């Protein structure tokens, strides 16, 4: 059989936002679950589930990232295939709508981890979805973010 589990971050959830977190996790789970139920690959299920979480402004990833000391967005993501032990990762990226998909694109192209402008250049050359960093910012006053 198949199995899937997603998370939306280890943190203090502000009062009144518990349902938004549960709902967002369930939507992401459904995205991955649909792939697994159809006989699809775990690696695809993980990418689709994380993309859904990155799209949801409830969570600190992709659309919903927090700002660093310079007032900039910097996102990190990685994905690992247990069949081959291949890993793809990107770090300190500012213009990627879905960092997890760029990390997934790295899996079959050798490098394990690309950072900053190099990762964004790779994304531009391999179909990554680029955006304005401002598109990723969501007003969540007091949110410290988390890894």
């Amino acid at each position, binding site marked *: 059989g198949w199995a899937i*589990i997603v998370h939306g971050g280890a943190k203090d959830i502000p009062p009144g936002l518990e349902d938004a977190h549960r709902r967002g996790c369930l939507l992401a789970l459904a995205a991955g679950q649909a792939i697994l139920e159809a006989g699809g690959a775990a690696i695809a299920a993980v990418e689709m589930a994380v993309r859904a979480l990155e799209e949801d402004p409830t969570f600190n990833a992709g659309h919903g*990232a927090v700002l660093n000391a310079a007032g900039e967005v910097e996102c990190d993501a990685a994905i*690992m295939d247990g069949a081959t032990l291949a890993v793809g990762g990107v770090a300190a990226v500012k213009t990627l709508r879905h960092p997890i998909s760029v990390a997934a694109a790295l899996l079959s192209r050798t490098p394990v981890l690309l950072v900053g402008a190099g990762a964004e250049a790779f994304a531009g050359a391999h179909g990554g979805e680029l955006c304005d960093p401002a598109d990723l910012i969501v007003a969540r006053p007091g949110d410290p973010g988390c890894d």
Partner: protein
Amino acid sequence: TVGCVALDRHGNIAAGTSTGGLTGCHSGRVGDSPLPGCGLYADNVVGGVSLSGDGESLIRTTLAARLMHSLEAMPPGAAIQAALTYLARVGGEAGLIVIDTEGRVDWGHNSAQFAVAHARAGQPARAFVNRAQDAQEDYP
């Protein structure tokens, strides 16, 4: 930070993480999320894990790798507890999700909350924000 672990019908396991970082952190700072063995790991012969929490603590303890090593000898729940116990050496908060090669799903955290949803073949999807709300007896 968000993450996912999945096991498909062919026995393949994958893990992923994605984060928007920490508010006010130094420009260029990178935490555990993109680092295999720290924020995630997957191996078909053991299982898959994805973590969240204080990135520097997870890096210093290579907590994903430690969790994977524990999974070689114990079920997911015990492996998660062992990892959280080890994390206490350096302090910090963490949340961990796990699927092992037998398809056992579990999760744990020492943070106040940890939003999680999970499902398995033949079992409906469920979501929680605290491990204590998820009945132990439902786990295989």
